[in-house]
């Protein structure tokens, strides 16, 4: 049986980086901790299942989506889903998900059985259920002024990461919106509610006024804007994007609750990080000349995922909103 996840336009990354930095959403949100040593908690799903071949999760603007191979038998289906959810119980319990069927959509009864299973055993409600279209997505029209060529900036190197042949562009989560999510399911329409997070507007973004000192940590499911520096030894962990209006010397982890990183970016006026993380991809900053007196500033820069590595570019506002609006 074909592994449904070999499609080349897939946004999934192989989880072969040395450490899995994904966060659990049950860790304390939006807390600044300045006491004690908070070792970053990692999404340790025990033995991180080497790619459950039937079920995989991804985050989108509307929330979590479970991609399920609909071609397996009902027993296998239920068992795989159960196994997948069991190992992520604390992460997912109480949340809602959407089913996205790959390959084939099972019978309605089978779907309903699965929905009941998921609801009764894991307290997870299913918003919607649909078949994933396999038509290749149209490439976005290149913006009039193309951004500089995608090369990993010389001051970043990739830690771990498998060499995986992928298309150079990652799958923007907004493409989900082009397809109807509703298929006779009694879900709720998240798009109508005000204050809901959309790809171009995060109403829950946090704004921090001040510098993060060594040992302090900000953790949030949403985006973060910091009017200040992030010093070496400090950490910013966000489910959304990270915008630092100052110097980043510490660790920033954007798209921390999404395996693919969700197209998130890290911006800083002066990017000199210890580490950058987006989704599962980790990249370390250049150690560089420690005693260098001159600030190695290349101006405002933005980091994003490109394939299996993190790419740093001089900041142009279009590189962010063009991707979001695709």
């Amino acid at each position: 049986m074909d592994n449904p996840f070999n499609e080349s336009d897939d946004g999934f990354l192989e989880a072969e980086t040395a450490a899995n930095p994904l966060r659990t959403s049950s860790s304390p949100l939006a807390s600044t901790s300045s006491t004690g040593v908070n070792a970053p908690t990692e999404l340790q799903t025990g033995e991180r299942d080497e790619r459950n071949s039937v079920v995989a999760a991804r985050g989108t603007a509307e929330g979590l989506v479970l991609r399920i191979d609909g071609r397996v038998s009902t027993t296998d289906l239920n068992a795989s889903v159960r196994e997948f959810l069991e190992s992520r119980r604390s992460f997912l319990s109480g949340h809602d998900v959407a089913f996205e069927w790959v390959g084939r959509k099972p019978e309605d009864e089978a779907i309903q059985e699965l929905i009941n299973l998921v609801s009764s055993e894991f307290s997870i409600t299913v918003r919607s259920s649909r078949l994933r279209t396999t038509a290749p997505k149209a490439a976005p029209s290149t913006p009039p002024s193309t951004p500089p060529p995608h090369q990993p900036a010389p001051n970043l190197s990739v830690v771990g990461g498998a060499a995986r042949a992928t298309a150079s562009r990652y799958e923007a989560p907004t493409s989900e919106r082009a397809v109807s999510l509703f298929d006779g399911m009694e879900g709720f329409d998240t798009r109508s509610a005000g204050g809901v997070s959309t790809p171009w507007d995060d109403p829950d973004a946090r704004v921090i006024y001040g510098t993060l000192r060594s040992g302090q940590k900000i953790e949030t499911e949403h985006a973060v804007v910091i009017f200040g520096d992030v010093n070496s030894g400090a950490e910013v962990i966000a489910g959304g994007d990270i915008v630092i209006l100052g110097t980043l010397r510490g660790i920033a982890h954007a798209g921390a609750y999404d395996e693919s990183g969700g197209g998130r970016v890290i911006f800083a006026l002066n990017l000199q990080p210890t580490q950058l993380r987006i989704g599962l991809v980790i990249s370390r900053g250049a150690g560089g000349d420690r005693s260098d007196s001159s600030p190695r500033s290349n101006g405002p820069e933005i980091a994003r995922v490109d394939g299996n590595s993190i790419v740093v570019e001089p900041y142009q506002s279009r590189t962010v909103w063009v991707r979001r609006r695709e």
Partner: protein
Amino acid sequence: MNTRSNGTGGKKDLGEVIVITSGKGGVGKTTTTASLGAALALRGQRTLVVDADIGLRNLDVILGLENRIVFNLVDVAKKICKPSQAIIKSKKSNNLFLLPASQTDDKDVIDEAEVRYVLDQFRREFHYILVDSPAGIEQGFRNACAGADSAIVVTTPEVSAIRDADRVVGLLSSKGIEARLIINRIDFDMVRRGDMLSVRDVQDILGVEILGVIERDEQIIVAANCGEPVTYNPKSKAGQAFTRIAGRVCGESIPIPDLSGGSLWGRITRKLGVST
């Protein structure tokens, strides 16, 4: 008497308690406590220096008073002796006193409340109380910060020391204690060569008011071994720096001299564009 207003609005004649800490070990906390204490005493301020490094006491050695210790900080805290029995007058000044630490206990033997009690016994007697904190951020550090009105963070211009200082500044501010910075052991030749962080670099990273800059000085080691703070050595640049720092602590506005000027010869050669 140095007057300070307390929280209730009335002015009281109480000494100011300053904790001298760093996070990183070996950057010059004890030297600073002793030398600054001596400098304040020279200005006529009654000063008590307290060694809070229980189990690894050093302040007594730097002041040359190790043979005169009878009672210590822990004895006062546990009310084994009267407070006045534990403090030791320094050799060279009638204004400088030492409250030594215990060497046979460790840092968990007392807690913050006991430290505050001890400090309260002496607040009315002294203009300044300098508390020498141990390295680290655990109970020893917490004890040293108990009851402090302000803090002096000591760092060297090195990346590891600065990161620790940054952590400590964050911890102090979460306790509501304002910190000022002393940069110790700076070598302006190395800074010029680009081998060492400059004062500006340190300021950029830490963002804390600089109380003083002290150049690397061999005389400090000599002074430590002799048990006489370097402040009493008029030829020592570090001693002069501590004297200036004492002035700033007392509220005088003394600018930090541009020590990178160096010798007259240095200035001349720089003007000519000749490298030395």
